[in-house]
C-alpha cells in the first residue's frame, strides 16, 4: 500500500480549490448559526443564486466576468432580504423549515423547463470561466512540492478563493469584535432580552442573514469560475448538510472554525476513500467492494462526526467553557 501517496492525495484535497470554496460558504453559515443562532438549512440556496449570477450573465447574455461576479453577490443579497423579511419574525425552528424549502424550491425553479432560456434548465450553463482564466498569471504546468501538486488553473482558483477566505475571515473578526457583533451574539442567547434593551432585533437578524448570504453567494460564484460549468442538481440539500458538518467539526462561533472544519473534513473524506480503495485492491475487505465503498466511507465519516460530537462538542477550536453553559 502506498501510504505516502494516499496521504499526499488527501492533503491535496484538504488545501485544494473545493475546500476553499466550502470554507467560504461555511463562513457565511457561521455568521448565521455560530454567532446569531439562526438555523439556516438552506445555505446551498445562496451558493446556487451566486453561481447562477455568473451563469446567467456570462453564459446566457455574454456579459463580462465582473458583471457576473457583481450579479452573483447581488442575488445573494436579494435572496437574504426576500427570505428574511417574511421568516425572521418566526421562531427559530420555523426559519429552519423555510430555509430548506426555499433552497430546494430555488433548485427546482432554476432547472424548470420554463426557465430554460435563462438558466439552461437541467443542463445548466457552460463556458463560464474564460474571463477568469484570462486573468490567470501562472503559466501552464504543475505547481507544488513532492506529491502535492496543482495544475495552473487550480492554483489560480486556490489563490483567489483562499484570499477571499482570508478577507472574509478578517471581516468576520472585525464584525464580531465590535458593538455590532456583541448585539449579534446577544441574539444567539436571548432575543427578548436584547429587545428589552432597546435593540431592533429584526434589523440585526436581517443584517446577519445578508452578510452570511453574501459569503454563500461568493462561494457559488467561485464554483462557477472553478468548474466553468454549472448544473442545478449539484446544489442539492446535502451540500448544506456537509457545510453544517464541517462547521460543527471546526467549531461554530469561532472565526477559524470554518477554515479548519473544511480542511480537516476534506482530508478525512479523501483519506478514508483512498485507504478503502487501497485495501480493497489488496483484498483486505471481505464484505464490500467497488461501488459499495462510497457508502461505507460516508458511514465512517459519520462515525467520526458522532464521536466528535460526544467527546468534543465544541468542535476542534471551540471553547469548552461556552459549551458547558446551559443555554435554556
Amino acid at each position, binding site marked *: 500500500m502506498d501510504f505516502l501517496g494516499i496521504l499526499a492525495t488527501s492533503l491535496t484535497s484538504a488545501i485544494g480549490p473545493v475546500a476553499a470554496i466550502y470554507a467560504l460558504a461555511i463562513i457565511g453559515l457561521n455568521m448565521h448559526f455560530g454567532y446569531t443562532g439562526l438555523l439556516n438549512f438552506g445555505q446551498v440556496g445562496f451558493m446556487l443564486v451566486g453561481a447562477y449570477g455568473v451563469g446567467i450573465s456570462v453564459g446566457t447574455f455574454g456579459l463580462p466576468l465582473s458583471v457576473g461576479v457583481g450579479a452573483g453577490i447581488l442575488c445573494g443579497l436579494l435572496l437574504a432580504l426576500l427570505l428574511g423579511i417574511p421568516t425572521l419574525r418566526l421562531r427559530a425552528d420555523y426559519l429552519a423549515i423555510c430555509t430548506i424549502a426555499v433552497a430546494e424550491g430555488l433548485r427546482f425553479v432554476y432547472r424548470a423547463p420554463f426557465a430554460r432560456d435563462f438558466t439552461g434548465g437541467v443542463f445548466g450553463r457552460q463556458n463560464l470561466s474564460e474571463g477568469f482564466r484570462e486573468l490567470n498569471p501562472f503559466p501552464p504546468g504543475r505547481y507544488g512540492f513532492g506529491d502535492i501538486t496543482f495544475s495552473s488553473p487550480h492554483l489560480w482558483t486556490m489563490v483567489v478563493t483562499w484570499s477571499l477566505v482570508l478577507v472574509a475571515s478578517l471581516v468576520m473578526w472585525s464584525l464580531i469584535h*465590535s*458593538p455590532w*457583533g*456583541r448585539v449579534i451574539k446577544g441574539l444567539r*442567547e436571548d432575543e427578548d*432580552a436584547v429587545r428589552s434593551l432597546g*435593540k431592533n432585533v429584526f434589523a440585526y437578524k436581517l443584517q446577519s442573514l445578508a452578510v452570511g448570504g453574501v459569503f454563500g453567494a461568493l462561494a457559488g460564484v467561485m464554483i462557477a469560475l472553478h468548474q466553468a460549468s454549472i448544473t442545478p442538481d449539484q446544489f442539492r440539500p446535502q451540500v448544506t448538510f456537509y457545510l453544517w458538518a464541517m462547521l460543527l467539526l471546526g467549531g461554530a462561533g469561532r472565526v477559524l472554525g470554518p477554515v479548519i472544519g473544511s480542511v480537516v473534513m476534506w482530508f478525512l473524506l479523501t483519506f478514508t476513500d483512498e485507504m478503502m480503495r487501497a485495501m480493497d485492491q489488496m483484498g483486505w475487505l471481505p464484505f464490500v467492494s467497488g461501488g459499495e465503498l462510497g457508502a461505507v466511507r460516508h458511514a465512517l465519516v459519520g462515525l467520526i462526526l458522532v464521536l466528535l460530537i460526544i467527546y468534543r462538542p465544541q468542535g476542534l477550536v471551540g471553547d469548552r467553557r461556552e459549551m458547558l453553559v*446551559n443555554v435554556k
Partner: protein
Amino acid sequence: MSSEPTQLGGAGGAAQGGIAEVSPHPGVAKPDPILVADGLRRSFGGLTAVDVERLQVQRGTITALIGPNGAGKSTLFNVLTGFDRVDTGSWTFEGGRLNGLAGHQVARRGMVRTFQLTKALTRLTVMENMLLAAPGQSGERLLGSFLRWSWARQEDSNRERAEALLERFRLAHMRDEIAGSLSGGQRKLLEMARALMVRPSMVMLDEPMAGVNPVLVESLLEHISALRDEGTTVLFVEHDMDVIMGISDWIVVLAEGRVIAEGRPEDIRSDQVVIDAYLGAHHDEAGRGSGDEAAEGIEEAR
C-alpha cells in the same frame, strides 16, 4: 417570619410628590403621572386577560402590582412594554403615546423591563452584558462597526459607567466571567444593573425576588429603594407580601384583569375587596398555594 423588611422602604410616601394625599380608589388620577393607561383590553380567545379601565403611575415612586395567579399582571406588563399587542386602549409614557410601538422602541423611550425568568445572556461575559445595553452606540451599526476609531471613545465611557454599576451591584469581581457562571441571584442583580445601562426613567421589574435567597432579597430591596431615591420610577410585580408592604409607595391590585383596588400599603392592608380577591378565589384550597400565603401575609401585615 421576621418583620424586618417592613422597615426597609419605610414611609417614603410623604416625599413622593404628594402621593400621600391621593385618595385610594381604583383608577384614581395622580398629581404627576409618568405612565397613563386608558381602556386597555387584551383577550386571548374568550379569555380577557387584561381589562384595565384606567391606571396611572406616579413619577418617582415604587409602585407594586399584585394579584392572585392569573390576574393578568404579566400580560399587563407585556402590553405596557410593547412585548404584546392590545385589542383596544391607549397608554402614554412621559406624555408620548406608546400604542403600536415595538418592545425595543419602548425601551428607547426610557421604559426598560426585566423578566420573571432571568434572561442573562449566558455566553457573553458580565461586562459584555452591560456594554450591550448602552444606548446609541455608533459601533452597533453594520458599517459603522468597521470604523474602530469612531466608536472607541464611546466604548471607553460606556465601560466606565458599566464598571461603576457593577461595583454598586457587587458584581465587579465577576466582570470577565461568562454570565452563565453566575448564580441565580447574581443573574437577577446583573439584569437590574444591565437595565440601568439603558438610562431608563422607569424600570419595570417582573418578580425581581422570585427564587432569590433571603439575604439577597434584602440587598435587592436596597437597590430598588436606591433607584427610587435617585428619581427613577419603579413598577414591579411581586408575590411576597412582606416585601411589598415594606417597600412600596403605592400598590395596585389586579384580579381577573381588572384593577380592583389601589392605594398606600396601609389602605390595601385593610381593604376588604383585596382580602376577598386573595381568599375568595382560592378558599376551598386554602391549605396550599399562593392564596394561602397571601392571606397569611395580609394577616401578618395587619
